[in-house]
């Protein structure tokens, strides 16, 4: 017997079927959902939409154009901004020394591990669009800026420590200068006034580093009495896709004993904690945290929070308290039950990487007592979010009010990146300093007319 389905009959069906399949493809791929108003998910009680899982995660990377001659970010009324130092190589964080010298930590991501799956290759390619156009230099060093005549503009610039391993955090205790490389905390003997560190560093303790080193920035702060160091260790994946064993001692803030380098996990479940700072009124440790990706343009809000000793903040098993993430297996209901929500949402995918509490008195009254947050900006959300420095007012040691835009204009009108803010510091005169790792500039914000 011949098959009864004749060629003629099937050929009628064929175009319909093909059209149906192609239409299905088009609808599913173009059905990208746009993010809502970030204000709705800023503050103590963010609106959390239902979780969506993509077929094709949005990769909305701002292409880098850099700053043209004379261009600067835009500041809020009552403020002015100028470039403090330019032609840097990926300046990522800043530290003001007691004598007013400013350390600029210039840092590049450690080499990527071998791709584990096809997605790693595609992602690396797309993310390469977002890296700085101009800087191909060595980076991974600390540059010292010195203002010898007190006009606020540094007139001396020197390479202070070179050949570091993707450094980020810096903390000075007495004459011990600690640098948090991506794989270790290293101590140097600090001598005020020296333009260059002559001595070799000694390792205080190793930190979780490569070969996979997904979130590599190690934020550092010393306790008030100087006996302890707190270091942020980011997760080794978005959401455990590199295997749970890669997450040992990660997504944690570690408390390191300065005498002997022994450490313990101070708090856990913090996906990528940065900007570690002590809130001046309560004395509590605070951090900004980058939350997980690929479950929606408005999930999960990045946040700032006080960090309680022994607390678990959810990652990877849950977000914002007890919202379970279905991508993690095996699940851990026992840990989810312990997860506590953070204090203050900054809205989704803004990528906060820097935070500083403002205790100076050089900026207008409205900026005193709260925290500035450097938002590096989103890569997986439409429309773009972040790419600015905001101010969160505090009262009685807690956030009190809506986050306000302070420094914007890192994106131009075509949504191309002229710069991206990262680490923040306050200089000796009370001006706000901003590290811009794409614009390769350190910006200085002061009061207008001051």
């Amino acid at each position, binding site marked *: 017997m*011949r*098959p009864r*389905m*004749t*060629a003629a009959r*099937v*050929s009628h*069906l*064929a175009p319909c*079927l*093909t059209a149906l*399949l192609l239409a*299905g*493809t088009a609808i*599913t791929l173009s059905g990208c959902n746009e993010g809502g108003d970030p204000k709705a998910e800023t503050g103590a009680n963010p609106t959390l939409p239902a979780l969506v*899982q*993509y*077929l*094709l*995660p949005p990769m909305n990377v701002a292409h880098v154009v850099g700053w043209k001659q004379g261009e600067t970010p835009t500041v809020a009324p009552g403020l002015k901004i100028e470039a403090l130092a330019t032609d840097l190589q990926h300046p990522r964080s800043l530290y003001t020394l007691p004598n007013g010298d400013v350390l600029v930590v210039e840092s590049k991501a450690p080499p990527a591990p071998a791709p*584990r*799956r*096809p*997605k790693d290759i*595609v992602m690396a390619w797309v993310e390469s669009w977002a890296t700085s156009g101009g800087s191909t230099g060595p980076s991974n060093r600390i540059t010292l800026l010195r203002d010898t005549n007190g006009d606020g503009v540094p007139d001396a610039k020197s390479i202070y420590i070179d050949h570091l391993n993707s450094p980020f955090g810096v903390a000075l205790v007495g004459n011990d200068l600690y640098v948090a490389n991506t794989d270790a905390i290293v101590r140097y003997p600090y001598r005020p006034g020296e333009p260059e560190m002559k001595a070799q560093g000694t390792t205080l303790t190793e930190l979780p580093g490569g070969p996979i080193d997904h979130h590599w920035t190690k934020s550092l702060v010393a306790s008030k009495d100087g006996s302890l160091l707190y270091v942020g260790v980011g997760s080794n*994946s*978005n*959401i*455990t*896709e*590199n*295997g749970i064993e890669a997450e040992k001692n990660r997504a944690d803030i570690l408390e390191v004993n300065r005498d002997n380098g022994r450490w313990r996990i101070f708090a856990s479940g913090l996906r990528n904690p940065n900007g570690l700072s002590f809130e001046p009124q309560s004395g509590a440790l605070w951090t900004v945290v980058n939350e997980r990706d*690929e479950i929606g343009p408005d999930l999960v809000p990045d946040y700032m929070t006080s960090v309680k000793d022994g607390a678990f903040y959810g990652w990877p098993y849950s977000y914002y308290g007890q919202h379970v993430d*279905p*991508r*993690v*297996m*095996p699940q851990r209901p026992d840990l989810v039950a312990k997860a506590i929500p953070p204090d203050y949402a900054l809205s989704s995918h803004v990528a906060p990487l820097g935070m500083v509490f403002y205790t100076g008195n050089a900026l207008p009254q409205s900026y005193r007592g709260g925290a500035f947050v450097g938002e590096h900006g989103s890569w997986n959300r439409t429309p773009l979010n972040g790419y600015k420095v905001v101010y969160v007012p505090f009262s009685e040691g807690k956030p009190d009010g809506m986050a306000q835009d302070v420094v914007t204009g890192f994106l131009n009108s075509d949504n191309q990146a002229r710069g991206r803010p990262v680490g923040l510091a306050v200089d000796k005169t009370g001006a706000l300093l901003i590290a811009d790792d794409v614009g390769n500039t350190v910006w200085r914000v002061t009061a207008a007319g001051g």
Partner: protein
Amino acid sequence: MTPVDHLEPTARIARHPIHPMLVPIPITCFVGAFLTDIAYWLTAEMMWADFSAWLLSAGLIVGVLAGIAGLVDFLGNRRIRSQPPAWPHMLGNLVVLVLAFFNTLIHSRDAWTSVVPTGIILSFVTVLILPVTGWLGWSLVYRHGAGVSR
């Protein structure tokens, strides 16, 4: 009746048809991806999900090449096209490629939901279709003589 002389494939190298040389690769990859999906489902060990993602990507790329070669034969020779198994063979494998495309996207998610449940279901459906379209394809060769030179 000997239709053999008239069923010459258009996509060929030195009179060897390209399409049947390529098809074993996507078939192996898609069957393999279903097996590694099962292994991930049972163990939650990311290594297996990573295997699935590589297998699906490789299967999809070579599958598209095999599809192009097959489509050239299909469109290039009216007599091949008019053999009864030709249309269902072509359409069935088009469905396989569309499923594999979506399955590759699903497998690009992170961790558990890259496989369970949608990914492993798509892998299973793909593996269900393959014997049918494979049977039809070999019918074209063994019974109808497509690509057989003498």
